[in-house]
Every structure is written in C-alpha cells, then in structure tokens.
C-alpha cells in the first residue's frame, strides 16, 4: 500500500500521449512530460493495465481524510488492438479512427490527476510518469471503490434521503444529467457514423462516374464525358467535405460529450460513496442510542469515527462539486466554440469549392 506522498517533478498541464503502438493485441501508449527543473523531458511507455494500476492506487489512499469525497478522473474502457463489437460499442467515439481520441482522453486523465491537489501527491503518479521501468502490474487489492461490489446494494441506497439540501439537489441534478449526457453522446455517434457512410457512398459514386466516360470525337459524346468527369470531381469534393464534417464532429463535440458523460458518472460515484457513508453514520447513531451499557462506549466510539469520516468526506465533496461544476462548464464552452468554429470553416471552404465547380460547369459549351 502506497503511503508516501510527494510533489510531482513534472509539469501537469502539458503531459502528452504522443503515440500509440500495437503489439499483437496490446496497445502501448507513449507519454511525454516536461521536467519542472526545465532540464528536459521524460518519455515512458505504458499499457492500459498500467493506467489501471495507477487508478487503483489512487483509490486506495485510505488514510487521506475525505478521499471518498474526491471525484476521480475517469478512465475510459479498456481498448485492445482488435476490439470486439461489444467493446467498440462501449467505447463509442473513442473507438472511431486510429485511437486519436482515445489517446486524447488518456492524456486528459493524466493532466487531471496531476492537477488535483490531493491525487497529485500520491507517489504512484510520480512513478507512473517518470519511471523508465513499467510500474508493477500486479492487481491492486479490492477496495471500497470496486464497482462490482457496489452494483448490488446500489439500487437501495441511491434514493436515500439526504440531510443536506446542497447535496440532495446535486444528487438529483446529477442523476438527470448523467442520463441525458449519455444519450446525447450515443445519438451524436449515430450522426457521425451516418456522415461517414455518406462520404463512402459519394466516393463510390465518384469512382463510377469515371467509368461512364465515352471515347470519341463526337462533340455530344465529349460534352457528356466532360460532364461525367466534372461531376465525379464534385462528388469527390462532397466526400471530402463530409469526411471533414465527421472529423470535426468527432474531435470536438463527440469528444466533449463523451467526457461530459464519463465525468457525470464519476460525480455520481462520489455522491454514492458519500450517501453510503451517510447510511453507515445513521446506522451507527442508532446503534449508539440503542446500545446496552456494556456496549455503549464502543458504539459511541464507532459513532464518533463515522461522524468524523462523514464530515471529512462532505468537506472534500463540496469543494469537488464546485470545482467540477466550473470545470465542466468551461470544458463544454470550449468544446462548443471549437466545434462551431471548425464546422464554419469547413462549410466556407466547401461553399467556395462548389462555387468554383459550378462556374466551371456553366462554362462547358451547351
């Protein structure tokens, strides 16, 4: 169990996942970080299992007060070089293309961890980013944060009435947003995939038009052939335009919606942990009240511990919620602006292109 804390020796804000290499079924990611001292860079390679190792260690900082109140940066689902259909569905946007978005998401994860006041102090982060040897790949022991164990009890506790209006509101709000964000991401993925299909259809049509060219010196034949060739170019442009539109969608809003969806999930998990602690506390209080004199002291002790833990969590949680709210608005704003700017640029370029082609068409002898 990692207990030692440290300060990070590298800058957090410009960590980069520069490349992904395929080795059989495994994907290896190259991570570059800048030394604080300004004397150079660290280059390390890590697999998904290493990321998971890091995540587990971050979860298991049990002696850090209020650690359960932290909204942990979210890791995407595991990707392999040849993912199954089920995995692809899980990955959504991140599975499209050649893992560019996936790298971006991992990059963001590391930057968030490195920027977090509590999490960045964990020595595991330093090791992950700077050690030339891959960190130990043994599975960390199961802990409170293991999702599988939560699954069964979740339903009952999720609806547990809160004692604090701030948190009750946040919980209600989060429940709704988590659901909507996930739906929006899924539907946007459908849009992008339709766009990609259109691009492919245009490419086929464009190629086929070339085959319609008729040889000969007959002026009508030549006019028709020329029209086919030009139309083929038009559809090639349409294809390129659609491809750009889809890429813009993927890289900006698609990514943004995916992040929003997973961040809401992360907040949901934190709020749930707090709720569970609340349930525990209220049980401890009842036990202390009802305790027979023999057990009374022990129950009181337990109650006091539960109270302290719960308060610590609430303090951290409140800060985290504020931080989270500000961060997501900023992220969404940035995403929407970027998306709009890119699509506007693409639309303008494409309009120019079509205009030119239209003029060229009008110029062919009638």
């Amino acid at each position, binding site marked *: 169990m990692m207990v030692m804390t440290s300060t990070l020796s590298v800058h957090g804000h410009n960590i980069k996942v520069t490349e992904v290499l395929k080795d059989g079924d495994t994907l290896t990611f190259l991570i570059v970080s800048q030394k604080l001292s300004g004397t150079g860079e660290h280059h390390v390679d890590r697999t998904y299992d290493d990321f998971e190792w890091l995540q587990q260690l971050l979860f298991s900082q049990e002696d850090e007060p209020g650690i359960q109140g932290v909204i942990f940066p979210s890791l995407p689902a595991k990707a392999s070089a040849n993912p199954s259909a089920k995995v692809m569905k899980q990955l959504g946007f991140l599975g499209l293309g050649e893992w560019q978005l996936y790298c971006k998401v991992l990059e963001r994860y590391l930057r968030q961890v490195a920027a977090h006041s509590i999490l960045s102090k964990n020595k595991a982060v330093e090791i992950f980013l700077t050690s030339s040897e891959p960190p130990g790949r043994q599975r960390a022991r199961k802990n409170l944060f293991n999702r599988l164990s939560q699954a069964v009890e979740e339903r009952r506790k999720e609806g547990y009435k809160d004692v604090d209006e701030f948190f009750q509101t946040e919980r209600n709000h989060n429940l709704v947003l988590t659901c909507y964000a996930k739906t929006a991401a899924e539907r946007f993925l459908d849009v992008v995939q*339709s766009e990609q299909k259109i691009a492919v259809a245009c490419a086929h049509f464009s190629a086929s038009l070339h085959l319609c060219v008729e040889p000969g010196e*007959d002026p009508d034949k030549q006019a028709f052939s020329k029209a086919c060739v030009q139309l083929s170019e038009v559809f090639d442009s349409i294809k390129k335009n659609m491809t750009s539109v889809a890429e813009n969608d993927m890289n900006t809003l698609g990514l943004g919606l995916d992040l929003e969806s997973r961040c809401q999930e992360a907040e949901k998990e934190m709020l749930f942990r707090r709720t569970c602690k609340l349930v525990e506390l209220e049980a401890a209080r009842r036990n202390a009240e009802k305790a027979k004199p023999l057990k009374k002291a022990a129950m009181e002790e337990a109650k006091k511990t539960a109270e302290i833990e719960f308060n610590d969590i609430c303090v951290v949680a409140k800060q985290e919620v504020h931080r989270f709210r500000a961060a997501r608005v900023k992220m969404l*704003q940035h995403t929407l602006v970027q998306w709009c700017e890119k699509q*506007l640029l693409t639309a303008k370029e494409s309009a120019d292109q079509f205009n030119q082609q239209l003029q060229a068409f009008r110029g062919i002898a009638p």
Partner: protein
Amino acid sequence: MLLVKNTLNPRSKGNEDEVVLHSLFTVFQLDEEGGEEEQEDEFEISISVKDPEKIGGLHPTNDVNVFQTQLAMFRNKTFTVRRRFSDFLGLYEKLSEKHGPNGFIVPPPPEKSILGMTKVKVGKEDSSSADFVERRRAALERYLQRVVNHPSLLQDPDVREFLEREELPRAVGTQALSGAGFLKMINKATDAVSKMTIKMNESDVWFEEKLQEVESADQQFRKLHTLVESLVVHRKELSLNTASFAKSTAMLGSAEDNTALSRALSQLAEVEDKMEQLHQEQAANDTFSFAELIADYVRLLGAVRGSFDHRMKAWQRWQDAQAALQKKRETEAKLLWANKPDKLQLAKEEIAEWEVKVTQYERDFDKVSATVRKEVNRFDKEKAKNFKREIINYLECHLQSQQQLIKYWEAFLPEAKAIA
C-alpha cells in the same frame, strides 16, 4: 412545366393504377410549321403534371389530368385535361407499336408499381408514399415532355388526342405494363434478336460501335443508379439521426442550470433541427437530380436498344425476302427444264412479286437505318444537355444548402462564446 397532379380514386377497380393526373401544358411559342428538330427553340411545349386529387362523385374511372398548350396545331393556346396513369401507358403502347418498327426511339413511361400504388390507395399517409406519389408525378411529367419534344412524335394524332381530348377511351391491356411485364416488353425485341442465329452482316461499322456503346452505357447507368439510391438512403438516415440528436440536446439544455450553457444547448438543438431539414432537402435533391434522371436513362437506353433491334428485324426481313426470291428463281430454272408452261408462268409471277418485295424491304431497311442513326444522334445530344442541366441544378441547390449552413453556424458561434 409539366405539372402532374396526383388524384386517387378510392373506388377504382382491379389492379389498374388509378391515378388522376392534372396536367398543365404551357407552350411558349407558336410555330406554324411544327418545327424541324434542328430548330427546337422555335416551338416549345411545356408540360405540367399536377399533384393528384381525390375526385368523388364522378364515375369511378373518370379521374383526370389537366394540360394546357399553345401550339398552333392545337385548337386552344392553353388547355387542361385529366388523365389516368393507364392512359399514359396506353399512349406509350400505341406510339411504340406505330413508330418503334421504323427505328424511332419512343420514350418509355415509368413502370407500374403495385406496391407503391397499394400504399397510396389504402391511404397510408407516410413519407414513403408521399415520396412515391411525387416521384411518379415528376416521372410522368418528364415522360410527356420527352414525347412532345420529339418532332415526329408530336405530329402523331394519338399524341394530340392525348393532349387535347376531354375524355379518352380507357386503355386496355395495360396490365402487361406492370413493372415486370414492362421490362419483358422492352426486352422482347432484344430476346428475339439474340435468339437469331444469323449474325447481321454489318456494312456500316457505325451501328456496331454504337450498339456496343449503348450496351456498356446501360451497365454503367444501372450501377450508378444503385449507388445514388444508396446515397439517398444514408442521407435520410442522417436526417433522422440529426433529429434524434436535436431532441437529446434540447433535453440536456432544459436540465442544465447554468443559464448561458442552457441557452447555448437549446440553440444547438434548434440548429440541429434546421440541419435536419437541410439533410432532407439534400436527399430530395440527390433523388430528383440524379436517381430519377439515371432511372429515366436506363429506360431510355432500353428503348435505344429496341430501335437497333427493329433495324435488325428490318434487315432480317430483307434477307428473308432475298432468300425467298432465290428459291423462286431456282424453281423457275427447274420448271424451264421440266417444260411445264403453266407452272412456269406462275413461277414468273411469283418472282416478280418477290423482286418487288426485295426492293421494298431494302428501301425500308435503309430508311430504318437512317432513322435510327438520326435518332441516336438526337439522343446523345439530348443526353448531354439533360445531364448538364440537372448537374447545374444540383450544384446550385447544394451550394445554397452550404450557404444556409454557414448562416446557421455564424448565428450559433456567439451563443457558444457567451457561455461562462
């Protein structure tokens, strides 16, 4: 402008498509001579086929179309008639029987579609049946326009009757012109010819080359049609998905408590709704500019092949007559030897008869060849013109879409920037 109005008579009987078409015929200029094909601009007949209407109270089969024309050969400048779908098919049958064998390329009408019409009859009001009705209307319009643009066909009294007469006798036997039956008819000539074991002794290499071109064009166009239809399907899918996404964005916007973000998301939902509209229009553009045009040409190429086949038949008839004449001469020679004066006289008469036929058929063949040649040249010209016009239409629409899109993005950008 051919306005085909579609009207459905719910009390129609049998399998026959009962589509009421209102057709509007407008001719821009008059030309007393009727015009040579080289002077097409001298007279122009424009046809409009309006949307179908339900006509109650009339005799069940009395659905009608409306045409208007200003051609000198017609009594009125503009007029309107009502026609059933089967009337259009009937017209085609008549024209192809009369002019096909002479080597004319008779434009084919759209096929009967049992599935499409059943939906419409049953009153299924959905986008696919509205689509079908519109496609058919436009196809009938183009069909008639082609017929009247053909200077020789325009002279045909059946065409004039079709355009002018208040009520047409019901066309019979158009059951054969269902989708499958129609293709059979078009291919009948081809099949008959391909079964012929005699290879035509082509003296004019122009025909051989042209036929090959036509056959390869047929293949290409069929392929293109499939590809465009696939493109249309994907565009419609995009439209649906965009609408779906717009809804989920609207929900996100309404749940959001940051005011500026909430407003931006609602705006985004509106933009996406507008884009859905654009995608729909784009799909329609693809359909009408290309899918339908290419489908027309697949049918037309069938008609072109038909004209080559008719020429082959004319050649065959000439050859058969020559063979028959040869036989008669041989008979005559035998009879000379056998010294049978009565039979000899008969034989001489038969020879004279067949000599006339041979000359006639040779002349027919030459005439058909000349017609086919002229027709094919005209076809090529029209094809180049049609495609160019449609492509320009398409590009103009597409450009408009893009410019609209730019406006939407420009309107959205300040909203996105205003989020804080």
